[in-house]
């Protein structure tokens, strides 16, 4: 699974960092950096983070695989 964060929407509430600190981290006080590829053992935490985002800026989904339509 992959994530992308709409950092246009992100307001730096950092709820995702609390809930999944191995995937999301703050750079400085409110800049958000994250690992787009979610390891299986972090998936549950990332689901929590995705649901918890106060501005619903996190998208979790499958990457496009061009071969299977």
């Amino acid at each position, binding site marked *: 699974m992959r994530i992308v964060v709409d950092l246009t929407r992100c307001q730096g*509430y*950092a*709820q995702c*960092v*609390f*809930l*999944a*600190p191995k995937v999301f*981290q*703050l750079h*400085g*006080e409110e800049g958000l950096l994250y690992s787009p590829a979610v390891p299986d053992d972090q998936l*549950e*935490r990332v*689901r*929590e983070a*995705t*649901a*918890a985002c*106060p*501005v*619903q800026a996190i998208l979790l989904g499958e990457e496009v695989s061009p071969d299977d339509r």
Partner: protein
Amino acid sequence: MSADTLLERITDYANRADPYPLYAELREAGPVVRQADGSYLVGSYHEITALLHNPQISADPRNLPGPAQKARKPPFLRLDDPEHHRLRTLAMRPFGPPHSPGRIDTMRGQITELTEELLDELRDRPQIDIVDDFAYPLPVTVICRLLGVPREDEPLFREWSNAVVASADVRPDLDTTEQDGAGDQARIDMGMYLLNLAEQRRGHPTDDMLSAFINEPDPALRLTPEELAETGVLLLIAGHETTVNLITNGVLTLLRHPDQLDRLRGEPDLLPRAVEELLRYEPPVHMRQRTPLVDMDIAGTTIAKGTSVVLALASGNRDPKRFHDPDRFDPTRQDNEHLGFGSGIHLCYGAPLARIEAHAALGALIPRLSTARLVQDPPPYRQNAMLRGPRHLPIEMRQSA
């Protein structure tokens, strides 16, 4: 009835079990509704979020007229930037990112264990009170461990906490002078108690937040004794008075929606979304009070500096202009930007902890609720209209096999 009595009716204990029709009436009456006493009530989602992001709006009660002006300096919850930012950032250092990003995540194991322990004790009981037997003891124990407060002191701080919370309520029907005095005194006593606990850890840090605060080596990052006391009081009270409502409202709502309860039992991955939906549908915090720092226009109404403006977050959560079918409890709801934890700079400091506690508590309870039944619906509520939740939630645990 006239819309200028809405706040009085919302806070009337008789309407505690179901204030939602009043919120609908409020949204019908307009985005900003004047009350008979000259204060204002705001119940629509977009106006509430705009005000929560507006720097001209103050959270500081000392900007309100009357006795509140002479009150002590409040904790960061009720301060404005830049002081709010400074104190919240310092308070955040031992709690969350950027300084302690993994702190709450590392408590998951403990919280799950604690949940199981509490539930094991209740296993053979035919009837339990979700509040006293589960939803209250869990967050109290967690916040005690996190802050470094002895769990056995609970009867002591429970009384202070009750007094502080009562004084923070909105009571347009009452002269609150006495209540406010009692609340102030409780804040002072509780602050002294926490400061004392912190002092005992000076030079002997244990793994808790009071230790971190008192042993902060950098003077620029250290809370003063007064700040430490105020912050400690805020965290200890907020750490359990709201989570108890979240968990209890969760059980109540799920038992009222057996189809959704069934669904969650089959699809545990839905739980995080279900908790967010609970925060929208039955939020633990129903209202916040604010005041403009200058005369300002809100949705076409001019509101004078210093006027009390009550933001009905729980009403915003049910605004059909923002949420499709808002009175439906839908754990699969998408795009759920609820106001359950507020929004803007004052967004609930402890939200991640409350979420982890609610996930653990409801996740463990859901499989056990299949044969449960509400003994009393609606249950008896606490007096408080701002921090709204049942005082008791008795449920019958019929044994299936």
